[in-house]
């Protein structure tokens, strides 16, 4: 045991370089494959992945897969400041989570000066909806779904009329954000939000792929290829616009 640790410490800078046989074994253990392709240069497009639950003020135990806003927000600030980064691809597969944290991420993405494209894969439920629509252009995979439902609280709730008013205001913020950043009208969005009979024993709607596009929530159906093409197109458009200002 001690020997193994020592040898690991000495090759800290270049791990696994001297022991080709055991490193191969380790790689197979880690990934089930022997080699990973390498990108030579720095990427000008960065990728934000929003997975699992969007974590708010309450820290969730490690077995939950979460997206933490204290991680994401500094990353968005870094993307905004780094001149080498030209665009951001946002990949969503989330069940939703904290409303305030979700809205914070959405506002950060919406106010980013660089082109952004979002892609909903699997699910972009609940507070994932404002994040998906916050980008300049949004895609949804054909099989991906988005659940639109009213805001609710879990945990300890003080049952006074003010609580419900506060919840109503919170919902209004989400509705306003979504209608401002997508092609859906407030009435249409609220219809989806309060629809009966779509979800078993609950109100709301589960829109799948092309349904999200026809309702005006998402711009088009597509995958990573379409999303990248669109992002490159937006980057070119922005470059042309900047050159125009210089002249």
């Amino acid at each position, binding site marked *: *045991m001690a020997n*193994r*640790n020592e040898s*690991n*410490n000495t090759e*800290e800078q270049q*791990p*696994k370089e001297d022991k080709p046989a055991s490193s191969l074994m*380790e*790689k197979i*253990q*880690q*990934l089930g494959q022997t080699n*990973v*392709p*390498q*990108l030579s*240069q*720095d*990427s000008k*497009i*960065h*990728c*934000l992945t929003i997975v699992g639950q969007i974590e708010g003020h*309450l*820290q*969730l*135990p*490690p077995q939950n897969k979460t997206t933490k806003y204290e*991680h994401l927000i500094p*990353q968005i600030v*870094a*993307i905004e400041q780094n001149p080498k980064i030209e665009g*951001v691809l946002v990949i969503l597969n989330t069940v939703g989570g904290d409303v305030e944290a979700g809205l914070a991420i959405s506002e950060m993405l919406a106010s980013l000066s660089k082109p952004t494209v979002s892609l909903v894969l699997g699910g972009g439920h609940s507070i994932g909806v404002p994040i998906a629509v916050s980008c300049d252009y949004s895609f949804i995979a054909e099989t991906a779904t988005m659940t639109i439902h009213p805001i609710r609280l*879990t*945990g*300890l709730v003080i049952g006074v009329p003010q609580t419900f008013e506060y919840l109503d205001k919170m919902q209004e913020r989400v509705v306003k954000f979504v209608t401002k950043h997508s092609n859906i009208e407030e009435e249409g969005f609220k219809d989806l939000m309060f629809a009966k009979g779509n979800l078993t024993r609950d109100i709301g709607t589960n829109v799948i792929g092309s349904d999200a596009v026809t309702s005006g929530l998402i711009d088009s159906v597509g995958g990573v290829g379409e999303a990248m093409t669109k992002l490159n197109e937006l980057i070119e458009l922005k470059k042309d616009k900047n050159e125009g200002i210089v002249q």
Partner: protein
Amino acid sequence: MIMYTMMPEELMFPIGQETFEKQQVIDYNGIPLLVAKNDMHEYEVVRVLSTDPSHYLHDPVQPGAKIPLI
């Protein structure tokens, strides 16, 4: 015993501090990583938190890779 409640599980059964201490975020050669300490006194990479896609192709930080404790 079955307990029916609308309370979130973590509110009913609070999780010990040591569960949270198992995982931490470290910066490894400029790549932010979510790591878990294992019994061998190494960090095991759980997740890469970077936004740079090229970091995900960087061999030493593949999820499951072991980084010795300094």
